[in-house]
């Protein structure tokens, strides 16, 4: 899926930032299966960009197109469809249901649009060292464990783009490596692209494009 931002300016980003940005106020074309690193200093609108692409933030000037379709014309149904099958996301604030178990959190996403990867959640969880913690309520897990549940949730659905908003902030080197391998494997399987937004680290991902936000 091709993403195009045409002179998009969110209202919460200062004009001075926008003038220096390689994203805001410019024409940005992200072709399908691209691997994009977004270097985003604090306050530059990294989370705003992820939310905008995912359709959670719709207050902006300019135009955002998905495969040539203007996102302004999307209704609830179209955004549901996009979130079920076109975008997968790891939010910076994770956005998990704290009372539900890890497995329930994953199933809430994976059962929306089942894929083969979703059938083997325990195996994927094992790769991230989470197989024995899937049945525990999320609010009893550490921050790093919650982050891995959020990553697993993002892996169990079909997608054209994997959006990552500082996905490894609470993981150690080893776990980052496991998670990266799983992500790249799923990106290959889905023939998808990814957009990694962070503070400038690529976490060992090979990217095609780096943009300064």
């Amino acid at each position: 899926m091709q993403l195009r931002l045409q002179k998009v300016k969110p209202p919460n980003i200062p004009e001075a930032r926008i003038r220096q940005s390689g994203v805001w106020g410019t024409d940005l074309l992200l072709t399908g299966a691209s691997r994009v690193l977004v270097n985003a200093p604090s306050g530059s609108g990294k989370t705003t960009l992820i939310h905008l692409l995912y359709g959670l933030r719709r207050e902006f000037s300019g135009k955002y197109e998905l495969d040539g379709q203007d996102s302004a014309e999307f209704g609830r149904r179209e955004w549901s469809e996009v979130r079920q099958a076109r975008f997968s996301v790891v939010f910076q604030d994770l956005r998990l249901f704290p009372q539900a178990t890890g497995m329930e959190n994953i199933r809430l996403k994976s059962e929306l649009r089942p894929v083969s990867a979703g059938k083997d959640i325990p195996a994927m969880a094992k790769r991230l060292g989470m197989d024995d913690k899937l049945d525990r309520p999320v609010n009893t897990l550490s921050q790093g464990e919650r982050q891995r549940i959020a990553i697993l949730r993002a892996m169990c659905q079909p997608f054209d783009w994997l959006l990552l908003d500082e996905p490894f902030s609470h993981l150690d080197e080893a776990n980052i490596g496991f998670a990266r391998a799983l992500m790249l494997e799923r990106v290959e399987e889905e023939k998808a692209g990814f957009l990694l937004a962070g503070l400038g680290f690529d976490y060992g991902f090979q990217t095609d494009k780096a943009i300064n936000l």
Partner: protein
Amino acid sequence: MTRLLRQIIWRGQSRRSFVFAGIGFLLGLSFLLLAVQLYDRVYSGIRADLESGELSRYLVLHKRIGNAQVMGKASPNFNEAEVEELRGQAFVQELAPFRGNSFAAAMTMEQFEDMQVLLPLESVEDAFLDTIPNGWSWSAEDARIPVILSSEFLNLYNAVLAPSMNYPRFTREFIQQYPLEILLIGNGQKRSMPIRVVGFSDRILSVLVPGEFLSWANEEYGSGERAEYARVIAQVSDPGDEALKRFLETKDYETSQDALKGTAAGALQALLALLAFLGLLFFALATVIFLMAFELTISRSRQEIDLLIQLGHTLPSLTRAVAGMFVPVVLGLGGVSILLLLVVVNLLSDAISAQGLAIESGIWSGVWLAAIVFLGSVMALSLWRIHASLVALAR
């Protein structure tokens, strides 16, 4: 998936409001359906009779049989003076005495030699008959005697007499075609004459024959015409008239149950109105509580629902999850309500029959329709409100 969504949305939510609303809903629906059932099975029948003047405007009066009548110290019959006194009352519009047979009469059938059903023959002025059927006349030259049977008499015969004596049962149509005979016995004579049932009466519980025949037969086989009358029929302006009731009590006269239907209809109307009012009240309150409880649930689960929408869940699936077990529970309550109705109807059936009012058993088809309308409306309203609340949240 819906189950998982339901767990997420309903986790930690109080269900107390729904339990209260469910109880109110069950009571309301039961009252409403009972009102609908009784309206059809009891009230509308009586009302139709009242409006057509078929029943309640005609009273068949007789003296209460007490010890004095049993001991022979007082006559059980009306004499001419008593008939005239009745005729003179303001509430009586028209009045006529029944003339009875002073001989023995029994219905027989050629095919059933043992069969002899004693017939209480009576005659009354034609003006008091429900309808005057074809062939309702008799002269000494006529071999066949026309008869008007009371519908209740035929019911009683079919329900009790026929099975107990192993006699054939008759439909209305069949008995009108069947070759029946009447055996007249008296004054040392015995004669069998063919009779033909020419019509039925809902108003008069008797076996009616033309006056000409009764006069002739009383002379031939009985002790002639009596100057006293066991029963009189009166057309009254208002069967619920207090003056009429007081007069009957004072004189120790009794009336047929038909008269009671006038007052019973009024009481029943009030009962049905009360039932329907209470039913609607409970139903409306329960529906409002349901709607408010759903809105509260959505409000309390606002964050969860918002996140579910962010993950890609659609409003229809979330509506189903918020509604949860509502639809099956409402349908279940509807089923329980119908069962309760069946029990109440069966209990009432006996009580109402004892008051002389007929009630059909089983549930009227209109009740099913009403149940579908009430259940459908509360489900549609609730689902619509849930969806509308979610739409407002999803903006």
